[in-house]
């Protein structure tokens, strides 16, 4: 069987089509917000929130919930709102708060899973959740519809409030001074970020989510300078790397999450070189 014949054969399996569809949508949404997060110096918020999601998944598993999504999403949204709204008057600053919540949730989550094991292969399930080795290839049609609906919502909100998000990203104080409700848009950003994190766990696992958010934005910034061009380039890079990562993974048998991150690192390297060449 040639590579093309094998690819066509693999695409006859519905789980491959589901994985590609959801993978592309998640990559698109995460890259849209990635630029904002990198510029607001909140790159690690994804890592913090994903560990909160891991802790919630642990609680849901211990409680034997059939579908943990409806517990993970609200808890992650609440955590995101609390983290991003602490602001300058907070007793614990942004990065310290993220670190505290991140490691706390990860530690407590793993402790709960060990105290109340609900599966024969605990280490394997934890590994799959942390690194997203095959989660994206085990989605049901319901999962696909849910991801598609949430991705459409995230994209629509980003497009509708693009100018406000732009203002809040670059100068929050000035935006508030001009009468725009900066706190409201920060709240919207917090909710969108949480939704994207919960979706992205399926693609790359909880530990590698930051890569999905950071690398496309940083790659685009090597070459482009305006907010719009960086955002558009970031989306293209993220989608291409996600699709490439999934394809390489199913062909070579590598874990999906790590392969996508490796593709993004490769993309960053290429854009770094292009940036050096174009600036000469």
């Amino acid at each position, binding site marked *: 069987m040639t590579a093309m014949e094998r690819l066509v*054969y693999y695409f006859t399996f519905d789980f491959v089509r589901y994985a590609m*569809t959801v993978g592309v949508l998640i990559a698109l949404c995460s890259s849209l917000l990635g630029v904002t997060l990198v510029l607001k110096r909140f790159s690690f918020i994804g890592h913090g929130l994903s560990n909160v999601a891991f802790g919630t998944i642990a609680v849901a598993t211990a409680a034997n919930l059939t579908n943990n999504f409806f517990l993970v999403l609200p808890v992650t949204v609440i955590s995101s709102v609390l983290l991003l709204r602490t602001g300058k008057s907070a007793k614990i600053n942004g990065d310290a708060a993220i670190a505290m919540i991140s490691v706390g949730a990860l530690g407590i989550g793993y402790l709960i899973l060990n105290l109340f094991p609900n599966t024969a292969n605990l280490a394997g*399930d934890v590994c799959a959740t942390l690194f997203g080795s095959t989660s994206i290839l085990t989605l049901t049609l319901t999962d696909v519809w849910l991801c598609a609906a949430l991705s459409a919502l995230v994209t*629509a909100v980003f497009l*509708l409030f693009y100018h406000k998000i732009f203002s809040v990203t670059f100068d929050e104080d000035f935006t508030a001074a001009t009468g725009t409700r900066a706190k409201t848009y920060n709240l919207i950003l917090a909710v969108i970020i949480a939704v994207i994190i919960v979706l992205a766990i399926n693609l790359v696992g909880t530990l590698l989510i930051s890569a999905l958010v950071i690398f496309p934005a940083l790659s685009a910034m090597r070459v482009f300078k305006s907010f719009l061009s960086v955002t558009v380039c970031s989306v293209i890079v993220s989608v291409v790397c996600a699709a490439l990562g999934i394809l390489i993974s199913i*062909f070579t048998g590598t*874990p999906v999450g790590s392969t996508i991150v490796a593709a993004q690192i490769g993309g960053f390297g290429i854009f770094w070189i292009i940036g050096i060449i174009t600036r000469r």
Partner: protein
Amino acid sequence: MASGKKARRAQALKKARRKKIAVISACALVIAAAALIIINSPRPGNDDRTDTAASITDFTAMSSTMAYAAINSIYENPAGHIGRTIRARGTYHPYSDPSMGQYYHYITLTDAPGCCPQILEFKLSGEPSRQDYPPQNALIEITGVFSSYEELGHTYYYWAVEDLITMN
């Protein structure tokens, strides 16, 4: 002059809003079209023999990641895959249940990081004895048909093996 500026600003805002609505509608249409393609695409199943001329899903020819996901999809909807023929390679493990007075036979397939094995129950066709099965931990290749049986009021799924090859 001020009213002229205001009117121009209002028009620009209207134009921007119309553009946004158009973009959002286009995105929604694209996503809806993609969803329809997914739903209407052929799926391999009992009647869909798109894999090979011999109608065998050959996990030995797939990557470990793909095989893991394919097996997972079978066990997500086991009733829909009864009669499906597969070929798989893995490690053989027997299990003796004293309460039932019989052996159960399993083949273990590991995924890429080796953390999430798939354990499939199988039985040799006919009336095999324990000696007809390979030694424990042997690397084996089986070709079998997905089937089910009832035991103590529960339905269990297994592979009725037509052909078993011991690799080592």
